[in-house]
Structure formats: C-alpha cells, structure tokens
C-alpha cells in the first residue's frame, strides 16, 4: 500500500533533517580533529550562499541533469517512505546517480570526467549489495513493499546479519566518506579538484547539496528498515551507524578505486551471498 502522507513528510522534512545531520557531521568531525568546527547550521549557510551566487553554467544541458538528479533522488526517498516497492527504490536511486554522472560528463573538463568515471565505478561497487539487500529482505518477509516489510514481526538484522554488514560497507561509498570518497572529496584538490561536482557552481551546486541531504535521510531510513520491528532500537541503530561512519571517515585515508570496487564486491560476495544461501537453506528446510 502506498501512503502519501509519509512521502509528503519526507519531501518537506528531509532537507531539514539531512542538513542538520551534515552540520552535526562537520561538528563531530571537527571535534575528532581537535578543532572547534563550524555551527551545526553551516550546511544551510553554505547552500543559502550557493543560491545567492551567480548562476554560471558550462552549457545548456547541465541544469537539466542537476534537476533530474534532484527529482529522482527525491522520488527514491518519497517512494521508500510511502511504503513502495523496494526494488524500484533501488533502481530509482541508480537512475538519479546516473543523471549526476551525465551532468559531470556534460562539461568538457578532465577533472569532471575523472570524477564521473569514478562515480560510475562506485555505482558498480555498491549496486550488487543494494539489490541483494532488497532480495534478502524479500526472502525473509516475502514482500518487496516497504509497507509490508515494516509489518514483519522480527528484527530483520537477526536473519540478515551478512546483508546488513555488506550494506554498512556500501553505505560508506554512498555517503562519500573516506576511505571511499574517491569520486568527490573536500580533501582531494591536487588529485581531482572536486571530482564529479567540479564543474557545478552556484545554484546548481546548491541543488546537488540539497539532493545529498535527501539521499542521506533515505539511506538512514534503509538502515532503519533492518530494525523496523523495534523502532526505538531502530533509531538507536541509525544514530550508531551514523557516528560509526564519521569515525571511519576520520580514521581512514582515501583508497584507490580498484580497492574500493574489489573490497566491496568481496564483502558482498562473502557475507551477503553466504547469508542468502543459509537463508535459502533454512527456508527450504
């Protein structure tokens, strides 16, 4: 069953929650580095500033791709929170990502192109585990509909520990955290300038930033799904996962794309597939 009210809440509140979370991210990161750090409202100031800047575009198609990226990322999250089809959610997210990559390719710039190619490699790395997550959840609950999955009486993480671990590993890629911030990073000036977002400026970059907030809220919602049977435990798990990502971000250096792809696939292959095989055996028996 699709319910529009949660979707509406997501569309309206996700930028606020996502922005605040990235503000907390920067504050916690600063404290981990022994700094004071900016206000937790800093991401809002940044985006506000970007919308005040001149709208400089490298060509006419760039804005189309940015807006498409925004629309499909919002659609992904809205469909998820409306209780829609989990498979469709996973593929809609990929579609959004593809628009970002196309936007980066639209500019004739080597840094943007390198960023776009690395972004594609990242999609390639995390896509199997995203799909396997949906498959694993289906095998347990017998439904792809998020609204049905939420009704499942048991904690999914108990039956899908491998899938959950694999998902956490891929989450670092999705949140663009070290060691997998290979396509775009604030710390890679000498390497790729700003990677996939190099050629976006002003309002376009602001919209990409807002889209990242939507994605952040959606991904944390996905983490919650594994603990949906007990929502207090779910919220605690989401907070722990978020802080764990920050800790990983601050204790790791950026790796090469080869390692990012290989390790993500290896983890997916080992923990997720084994999890599914065991699950299939248990279900059959």
């Amino acid at each position, binding site marked *: 069953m699709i319910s529009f009210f949660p979707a509406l809440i997501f569309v309206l509140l996700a930028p606020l929650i996502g922005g605040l979370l990235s503000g907390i991210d920067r504050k916690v990161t600063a404290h981990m580095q022994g700094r004071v750090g900016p206000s937790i409202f*800093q991401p809002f100031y940044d985006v506000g500033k970007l919308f005040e800047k001149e709208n400089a575009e490298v060509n006419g198609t760039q804005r189309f791709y940015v807006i498409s990226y925004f629309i499909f990322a919002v659609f992904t999250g809205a469909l998820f929170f409306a209780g829609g089809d989990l498979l469709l959610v996973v593929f809609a997210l990929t579609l959004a990502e593809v628009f970002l990559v196309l936007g980066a390719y639209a500019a004739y710039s080597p840094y943007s192109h390198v960023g776009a190619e690395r972004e594609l490699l990242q999609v390639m790395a995390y896509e199997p585990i995203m799909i396997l997550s949906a498959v694993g959840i289906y095998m347990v609950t017998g439904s792809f509909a998020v609204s049905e999955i939420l009704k499942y009486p048991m904690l999914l993480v108990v039956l899908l520990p491998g899938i959950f671990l694999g998902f956490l590993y891929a989450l670092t890629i999705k949140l663009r955290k070290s060691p997998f911030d290979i396509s775009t990073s604030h710390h890679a000036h000498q390497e790729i300038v700003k990677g996939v977002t190099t050629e976006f400026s002003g309002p376009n970059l602001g919209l990409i930033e807002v889209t990242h907030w939507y994605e952040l809220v959606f991904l944390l919602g996905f983490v919650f799904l594994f603990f949906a049977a007990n929502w207090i435990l779910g919220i605690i798990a989401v907070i722990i996962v978020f802080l764990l990502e920050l800790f990983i971000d601050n204790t790791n250096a950026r790796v090469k794309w080869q390692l990012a792809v290989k390790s993500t696939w290896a983890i997916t292959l080992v923990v997720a597939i084994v999890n599914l095989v065991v699950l299939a055996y248990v279900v059959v028996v």
Partner: protein
Amino acid sequence: MAYLQKSPWIIHYDASSCNGCDIEILACLTPMYDVERFGIINTGNPKHADIFVVTGSVNEQNKYVIKNIYDQMPDPKVVVAIGVCATSGGVFRECYNVSGGVDMVIPVDVYVPGCAARPESIIDGIVKALGILEEKRTAAVMGVSREQPVPAAATEKPAGGV
C-alpha cells in the same frame, strides 16, 4: 539574507611565493586557528570559491593563470593579496621577470602586508574581504554595476614591468 558572509569558500593560488605566506595560510586551517569554524573552506576549485587568495609576486609566466582563475569564479567574488610580494612585488619588484603585485593583473580588494603575513592578519584580511563581498552582492541585487576602483599601485608601474 547575507549567507555569503557565513560561508566564504576560498581558493588559494601561489604566484611565485617563497612558500612563507602559503604556510601561514595553511596554518589558519589547523586546529590552532581553525578558520572552518567561520565556515571558511579551502576549496581548490575556482568555480566553488568566493574569495581568491593570492600569495607571491606576479611574474610573466603566471599572470595568465591568475586572470584565468579569476575569470572562472562566479560573482560576487573578492581578491585578497597576502604578503608584501602579492601587494607590491616586495623585494622582487625590480626583478626582470616580475610584473609586480597581483593588482597588475586583477582588481584586488584587500591587501594583507607582511613577510610572511601572520595568520592573525590573514584572518583579519579575510574578514575585511567578507564586508566587501556583501557590498558587492547588495550592489548586484540593486542592479548597480559597481566600478572596480583601480588601486594606486596598479597605475605606478615599476620600470621593466608590464
């Protein structure tokens, strides 16, 4: 709303500096001074930057680079010349390959003298630049084309300069 002042992103370019001023700029980012608490980020990308921070004197090789970086930055933008070499050419002013200060190539809004400029004065200069940035934004919103005042240093060219 003046979000510009709360989120100034800088790009730092070293135009034949001795690295003294560059080290001091990077010192501003360390936990000791931590300019990120004011929202200042060193972006390294002209298309994301609001403040162009230049160190060192301009020479014949890199004046096109400086002009190029400046042109790539979206408006409103300000330029801060850090160190005595960037403000006037410093002790290298008379060198055969040195054009002079940064204002020979692009309009400079704030001069931060010193050899090397101290982190405190660099931060002070950036804060002054924020005021000018806000002025430029309001001028743009009002539709007033703000004439860049040509600094005095730009008119008195050294012998052998451009």
